[in-house]
Every structure is written in structure tokens, then in C-alpha cells.
């Protein structure tokens, strides 16, 4: 399946996200998930960013928190609400919110 995950949490729930597999997996970081794209804890990037190469972060939520697109991990593509609509309809068949 082609599965798009809207990740709104900054804590990794390994029971859930860790075990998810999909032919095509996309992770869109929203809400508190946006910290995962920018803030390194103890110098390390979040292991979430190794889970797939289809990584996105919602600019509106990033900027609301004082984070900046300039500091986003190079693997993560900044997107807007409008882009998220296209990802949902064009790139993924199933969408979940974690």
C-alpha cells in the first residue's frame, strides 16, 4: 500500500510507527512532529528520519513554533497545507494521523 503518515507527536511510539511497513511510506511532520525535523537532542537527529526517504514538514507548524525552514534536516522537504492536500490525493492511498 501507499501510506501517508501525518506525525503530530514529538515522541516516537516504536510500538506503532516502528512496526508500520508499506510499499511506499511517506511521513509528513505536523504539529509537535515538526520538532523532529529541526531539533537535535544531544546532537542526534531523530531516528524517524531514517524510516523513509519521503519526508515532509508543514511550514506553518514549523514557523508557529519559532523553528525555521533554514534549520530543517536536509532529508525533509518543507510543504504547505496546499501541498499536503496534493500529497493526500496524489501520492498516498491511505492516510493516518499519529
Amino acid at each position, binding site marked *: 500500500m501507499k501510506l501517508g503518515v*501525518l506525525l503530530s507527536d514529538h515522541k516516537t511510539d516504536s510500538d506503532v510507527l516502528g512496526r508500520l511497513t508499506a510499499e511506499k511510506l511517506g511521513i509528513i511532520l*505536523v*504539529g509537535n512532529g515538526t520538532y523532529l525535523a529541526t531539533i537535535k537532542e544531544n546532537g542526534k537527529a531523530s531516528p524517524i528520519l531514517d524510516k523513509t526517504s519521503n519526508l515532509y514538514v508543514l511550514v506553518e507548524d514549523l514557523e508557529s513554533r519559532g523553528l525555521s525552514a533554514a534549520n530543517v534536516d536536509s532529508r525533509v522537504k518543507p510543504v504547505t*497545507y496546499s501541498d499536503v492536500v496534493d500529497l*493526500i*490525493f496524489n501520492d498516498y492511498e491511505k492516510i493516518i*494521523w499519529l
Partner: protein
Amino acid sequence: MGKLTIGCFSSLVGSLSLDFAVKLSEAAVKKGHDVDLWVSSNATMLSKKGQKPFKDYSHLAKTLTELFASGKFKAVACEACAEARGYHKDDTMEGWGRRSMDWYLASAFSADRVLLIGGD
């Protein structure tokens, strides 16, 4: 063009997840998609009329009014959730429906995409 059904449980104030649901609806409708929005649990309060705007709180009533006017947006609130919170039918904001949970499932039946936003 497709149909997106969104279910949301999150608090009216504080979580911003309900704001996400409304802003995503807005972006989808602008692109010509149809959106059904189902609010249950604490999100039910989004459908209550008379919410006073404060700088500290999100105020989504204006966006909702524009969405209803588009003709591509339907929004329904969970009836039991509303009653349990002491919020009754005549307090419902214009445009909103009040139904039981099967409405959400019926909407999902014919949706191209379903997004359920659980949690607080």
C-alpha cells in the same frame, strides 16, 4: 477532484489539531475537492455558536462560514457528545448538522481519502 472525509476528536482550544482539520479542509476545498468534517468528543464544541474571539485562542468560526458558502464542505457534530457537554441543538452554529456516529461512517463509505485525527 476527490472527496476527503475528516474525523476529529481534538479540543476546540489548545491542541491546534482541530485548527489543522479546518485549515486542511480549506486548502482542499480551494483545490476543488469536497470535504466532509465530522467532529466528536471535545472537538464537538467547534460547532457551538457564540464563541467569543480572544487573542489567546483560535477562532475558526469565520473560516467555517466561508467553507459552508463554498458548497463543497459539509460539517456534522456528534449529537450525544454535545448533549453530554450541556450544549443543545438550538446552540448549533449555522451550517452545521448534528447526527450520530453512523453519519461519519456513511461519509467514509464514499470518500476517496479518510483522515481520522484522534487523541486530545
